[in-house]
């Protein structure tokens, strides 16, 4: 969305119809710049609050609660994110439909989880909650539309 060559887009849920919008600092421990379309979550006890790439899992003191993933909609590939030092995010599972480039070959209806910030159709098991569902997939241009 932020780059002319990008296929990433928010179809529903932003800007006026959002979901839940927030800006976070990228965690200093992140392995590389976090870009749009990446799934992130807050880093425990970080100050200021920072985010890093997310892997779907049950969380909490008893590891029996849903995780809280966010989708980066403006990441380090954009100048304004670099300038402000913030990643703009929408909270997943709050009413979003978005288009994102993918290397997966999903089928419509596939459920999605996150693995180190990237979408995956592989269920990690253990009752981990999915974070969205594939609504459309274009095998030619390699993008998918996801509801969350």
């Amino acid at each position, binding site marked *: 969305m932020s780059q002319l060559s990008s296929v990433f887009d928010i179809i529903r849920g932003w800007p006026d119809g959002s979901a839940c919008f927030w800006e976070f600092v990228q965690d200093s421990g992140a392995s590389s710049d976090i870009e749009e379309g990446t799934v992130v979550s807050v880093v425990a006890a970080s100050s200021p609050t920072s985010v890093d790439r997310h892997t779907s899992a049950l969380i909490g*003191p008893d590891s029996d609660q849903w995780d809280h993933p966010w989708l980066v909609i403006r990441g380090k590939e954009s100048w304004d994110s670099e300038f402000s030092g913030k990643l703009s995010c929408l*909270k997943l599972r709050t009413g979003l439909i978005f288009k994102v480039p993918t290397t997966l070959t999903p089928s419509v209806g596939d459920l999605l989880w996150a693995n180190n910030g990237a979408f995956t159709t592989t269920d990690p098991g253990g009752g981990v909650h999915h974070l969205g569902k594939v609504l459309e997939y274009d095998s030619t241009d390699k993008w998918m539309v996801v509801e969350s």
Partner: protein
Amino acid sequence: MSNLNSQFDILAGEPPSGRSAMEGSFPPKSPPTITLSEGVIVAVEDDGTGNPVVDAATSSAADAVPDYLWLVTRGSDSWDSSFADKISCLALHTGLVFKVDTSGSFAVGDLVYANAGVITKLTAGADKQAIGQVIESNATAGYIVVAT
């Protein structure tokens, strides 16, 4: 929000700027368990005559049917709410970021649940459904920011 000395605020998700959350307005239970002020977590219940009222809520067990809880945004501490005998609420888990006073100790990433209407840190063995995650904690000013 309704009181000048209050730190409570809805940071994202309040209509019409965001896709809130579901907004609702209910009479308080008579008498309520506690004063239903802004920032209190409530649930709808039957007043005994088939009419809905709200009262302070406690999250259900982690493996129970998911709760339908609401955040009081204008409660009995405000004149207009008292005058109208209605409590204004936003539904949780629908895309909200809110700031609420607390004297508790929280860290970024903590999960929270409702304990008799009060937002409480989810600790090991609590066996309660989380209502959201702390994304900012300021012990000096005495508030937390919760995403749900």
